[in-house]
């Protein structure tokens, strides 16, 4: 037993104080602008959960009446990511809206220095917000890129009168109002807010599972004060997102030294220097995780992160590198824990890295599940059905 006059890290108590925040609470300015008739604020509908953000402020996370702003990359590369979010909403009988008139946020090209201007960027964001508001639902952003971008757009609109005027004019031509949500909410914050309810419905034991978490850069580095932090998670020194959700499921979250680094996606890199993205993802993330934590799975919460961390391992495998870690979104892990089908709902066949050993470790009969999925596919091939339905997913 060491007796020192210095307390250990877990005994040091960090008090989050909103008064010492280096930034203003944007919502105060937002409501002031609403009073002045500059814009309309979309209120977070009830019921909502209050969580704490980086500087100790409170953020409202809506549990229902959510308008699901999907992700281009998710739908294109890893559709089970979004399906898992919808499956969770349906499992809890929550009122949600899956719009068909949502557009891309166009932020990927913006962050890759490839396109657009502030007015166009902001107008696209507001058009989507307005679509949600018109049907009486609140935007829930699936994509980390869109989430980060919308936070930046909101910040710019609040602080730039000229930009507001231009966007208001564009909206007028579209027959829509300049509306801005009270909170910009990422789906993983919804998972975090729902974590106890998810854990109550957990049917697959995950207490023997070790995971490493990659927090998405656009979640906790852009408008950083809007990310969720909890005293119990790394002493409120890192965002609680994903980690808190996994811990609620009994998963052991292991640390690794490159946790703060990008997944490798890098927006511009994945477009113009893809080899760099692959190398970074494998060498700075996956290999480090393997060496330092040897997890069963990597869990993250953004389209770019899941695809990059997962798909880059193919390149690493070809070079006999230390790869082979399945990568999933927190929504997929949560749905799996509640008994969602690994292929019909999670659609893990879209993932590159072999996830069967992980599923088997959870006691899931992978061959049986695959056969069930194949049977449904055979029906589609035979022209007996057009696509899988939610009823099929529950069979």
């Amino acid at each position, binding site marked *: 037993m060491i007796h*020192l*006059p*210095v307390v*250990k*890290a877990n005994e040091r108590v960090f008090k989050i104080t909103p008064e010492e925040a280096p930034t203003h609470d944007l919502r105060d300015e937002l409501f002031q602008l609403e009073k002045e008739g500059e814009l309309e604020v979309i209120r977070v509908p009830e019921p909502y959960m209050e969580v704490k953000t980086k500087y100790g402020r409170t953020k409202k996370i809506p549990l229902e009446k959510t308008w699901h702003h999907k992700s281009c990359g998710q739908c294109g590369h890893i559709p089970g990511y979004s399906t898992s979010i919808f499956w969770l909403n349906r499992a809890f009988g929550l009122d949600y809206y899956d719009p068909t008139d949502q557009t891309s946020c166009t932020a990927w090209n913006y962050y890759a220095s490839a396109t657009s201007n502030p007015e166009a960027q902001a107008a696209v964001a507001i058009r989507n917000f307005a679509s949600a508001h018109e049907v009486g639902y609140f935007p829930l952003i699936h994509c980390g890129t869109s989430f980060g971008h919308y936070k930046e757009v909101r910040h710019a609109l609040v602080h730039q009168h000229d930009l507001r005027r231009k966007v208001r004019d564009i909206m007028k031509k579209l027959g829509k109002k300049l509306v801005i949500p009270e909170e910009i909410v990422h789906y993983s914050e919804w998972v975090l807010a729902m974590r106890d309810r998810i854990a109550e419905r957990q049917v697959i034991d995950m207490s023997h599972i070790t995971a490493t978490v990659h927090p998405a850069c656009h979640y906790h580095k852009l408008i950083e004060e809007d990310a969720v932090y909890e005293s119990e998670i790394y002493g409120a020194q*890192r965002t609680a997102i994903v980690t808190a959700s996994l811990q609620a499921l009994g998963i052991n979250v292991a*640390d690794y030294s490159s946790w703060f680094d990008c997944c490798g996606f890098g927006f511009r890199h994945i477009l113009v220097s893809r080899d760099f993205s692959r190398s970074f993802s494998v060498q700075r993330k996956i290999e480090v995780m393997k060496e*330092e934590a040897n997890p069963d799975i990597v869990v993250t919460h953004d389209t770019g992160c899941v695809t990059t961390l997962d798909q880059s391992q193919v390149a690493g495998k070809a070079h006999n590198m230390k790869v082979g870690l399945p990568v999933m979104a927190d929504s997929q892990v949560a749905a799996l824990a509640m008994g969602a089908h690994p292929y019909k709902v999670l659609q893990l066949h879209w993932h590159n890295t072999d996830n069967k050993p992980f599923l088997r470790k959870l006691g899931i009969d992978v061959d049986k599940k695959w056969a069930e999925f194949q049977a449904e596919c055979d029906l589609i091939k035979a022209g007996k059905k057009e696509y899988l339905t939610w009823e099929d997913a529950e069979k």
Partner: protein
Amino acid sequence: MANENVLIIGGGAAGIEAAKGVSAMGYKAILVEKRDRLGGTPDEEKYAALTPDLRNTTEAFAELMAPIVDNPLVDIHYNTLITGAEGELGNFTIKALQLGKEVEFNVGSVIIATGFKHFDPGRETQKYAYYELDDVITLTDAEKMLSQHKFVRPSNGEEPKRICFIQCVGSRDRRLGNEYCSKVCCGISSKQSIEIKKLLPDCKVYIFYIDMRMYGYWENEIYWPAQEEYKVNYIKGMATEIVKKGDKVLVKGEDTTFRRPMEVEMDMVILAVGMEPSEGTKQMAKIFGVNQNKYGFIETTGGCLDTVSTNVPGVFAAGATTGPADLEDSVSAGAMAAIKALTAIRSLAVPA
């Protein structure tokens, strides 16, 4: 008739020196301290030795306090918190709580010497891992260990082989809003590096700095001895992230001399935390209605020629209450505040 007593709030270096000055000039000093002992932050945080002369803190403060202990012209009130004030120069009525009991002081002028608090590295969220890693400590933690002449890794009790200091933690940081230099941290880090090398001659000690600020004689007193006699390595570079790597602490950042990224493994990291206004300083500013600068320190009105007068006649501030200050500054300002406080009272007796 003006009341000629002076109330001094805070029993640190500036407050003690102010009480000494007031009593030495034959006037009554009423010294109130929220703790049950004098000595201020150096005592509360158990500083091992003073910068720059490495003098034992307890001994040095005992010497500083000696003239006011058992001095009939100095009333010391421990466990006392000021709660309200009214009146004006020559006739202030100050309310306070003393161990839960309300007390009142009638004085002619007031010296606020409530000092500073150390920057909490947790506010630089996710950068320094202070709340995550046992082997990341602050200058004040290091002082506590050095005062016991034992310097080991908190994680396992073993003697460290590689240590680094990281300068400007919470200082000169525009993002946080603390754009100022805290003045003492470079000196204290250099002083501690010497103390560590004395205890652990084989330990490699590094100091990562933006630029070292060695005021006055500190250059020869601690900076050069640290390098030449004790072989401390000063590296111009910014640490941007601290993470765990095995049983080591991995410091990531940039070596700005070589203009390249760096990743170095350490057994321990010491964060050179800067200064911020204490809660007491912020509270006293509100109670007495004195102006604060944008950082929360009490604002003095005379620029560099009068470092203790405030916007409220009869209310003065001294030491780290007005901004980052070393002990030399604090003691000097305490003495100056004593003179100004008495001069202000005496000016009332002079016919116009």
